[in-house]
């Protein structure tokens, strides 16, 4: 988190404008395991993208392109749901 602001600097009503808001990094929530994809096995079904609770699957257009480990919490759902077993959870 950046420097905390003083009351005079806040939007009326506490509105948060997304463009100006700081990004929260929840990658630190992972407890030892992170997902890793074997691209050769990936068939771009995008089920991992669909099911990831943390919008941590990165796409390039409609092609699977990896994980955003800044926000991935390591829930293992992508690995569980990948139909080709392309995703494995590995130690950090």
């Amino acid at each position, binding site marked *: 988190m950046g420097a905390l602001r003083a009351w005079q600097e*806040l939007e009326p*009503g506490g509105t*948060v404008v997304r463009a100006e808001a700081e990004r929260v990094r929840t990658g630190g929530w992972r407890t030892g395991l992170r997902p890793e994809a074997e691209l050769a096995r990936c068939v771009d079904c995008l089920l991992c993208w669909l099911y990831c609770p943390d919008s941590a699957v990165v796409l390039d257009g409609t092609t699977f392109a990896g994980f955003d480990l800044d926000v991935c919490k390591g829930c293992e759902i992508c690995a569980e749901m990948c139909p080709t077993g392309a995703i494995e959870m590995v130690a950090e």
Partner: protein
Amino acid sequence: MSAALELLTGGEAVAHAMRQIDPDVVPVYPITPQTPIIQGFAKFVADGQAHGELVDVESEHSAMSAAIGSALAGARTMTATSSQGLALMAEVVYIAAAMRAPIVMALGNRALSGPINIHCDHSDSMLIRDSGVAQLFVENAQEAYDMTVLAPRLAERPDVLLPVLVCQDGFTITHSAEPVELLPDESVRRFVGDYAVPHAVLDVAAPATQGPFAMPDYYFELRRAQVAALEAALPAFDEVAFELTRLTGRPLAAVERYRVEGARTVVVALGSTAGTVKEGVDALRDAGEPVGLLRVVSFRPFPRAAVAEALGDADAVVVLDRADSPGGAPPLFAEVASVLYGSGVELRGHVYGLGGRELHPEDLPAIVSGRAPAYVGLRSEPCPA
């Protein structure tokens, strides 16, 4: 009086003000004595004389919630309620203020249950006195109209952006017909102007998150910013009132000083009672008693400086509260005590008029002289003549 005057109840006068302001969205739920306001406005809509939409919600909690939704969506929004209605929506009234939704509400003041009662006192207003909304108390139907016309301008100022309640005494004003002068429709429309909020929800091009969760690291700061908006509302009120007075010729101010000059004892009151007290003041003045009245119009924000200034020279100040705080200090009394603390002015207070009990000009001598009981108007404890 002039032939241009209409004989209107306060409720009808406010309905006319709403027709002229012509808000976009009016979510309402019926409750006595607010009903003449919403029924009058409903008829204007049904007849094509007003062009917004009445939303007949299923409770007052939803009335205020829908009002927040539409006001923040970018639509000018008004509503009205009384008593239990205000109590039921209290939770959301605080939030409306905190979200800075410039909603205008007509409040027909009525006693809170229990027991259930439909007549006037100010307990409903007092219930939300910490909520951060502005509360303006009017004395009669004409002022109910004027203040309603003024309210959107105050509410929508970028430095204010707060809900504004125009509080009129239930029945005593809402249902009493008095001469009222209406401004031309065009003048009102021009006076209120266009509506805008900083981040309209419907603006999908600039997505904003409104109503986020605040932890201890920010909550206090956000509340402090809200206090600043209320502080700004006081000079803002003066400015907007000045502009309106130019149209109406009728003065409006955060406090009204009635024969305060040279008064040794000054009575402080809100709402329609002030008119009754004026009669009593005149009678006492006629009898040579140096008595005056300070009518607090803007109860929130409370005009601390103006009150202190108006009362500072008196020997004694008597506060009349039309609401009580059982086991504690009555609200208006506590407010005045906070302002006058240390001034050396003697301060007394009475609770009167709960649930529609009458106060008469004839009660004033006892009140002013200190012979009145703490609760004025209880039948077992009459004011000595």
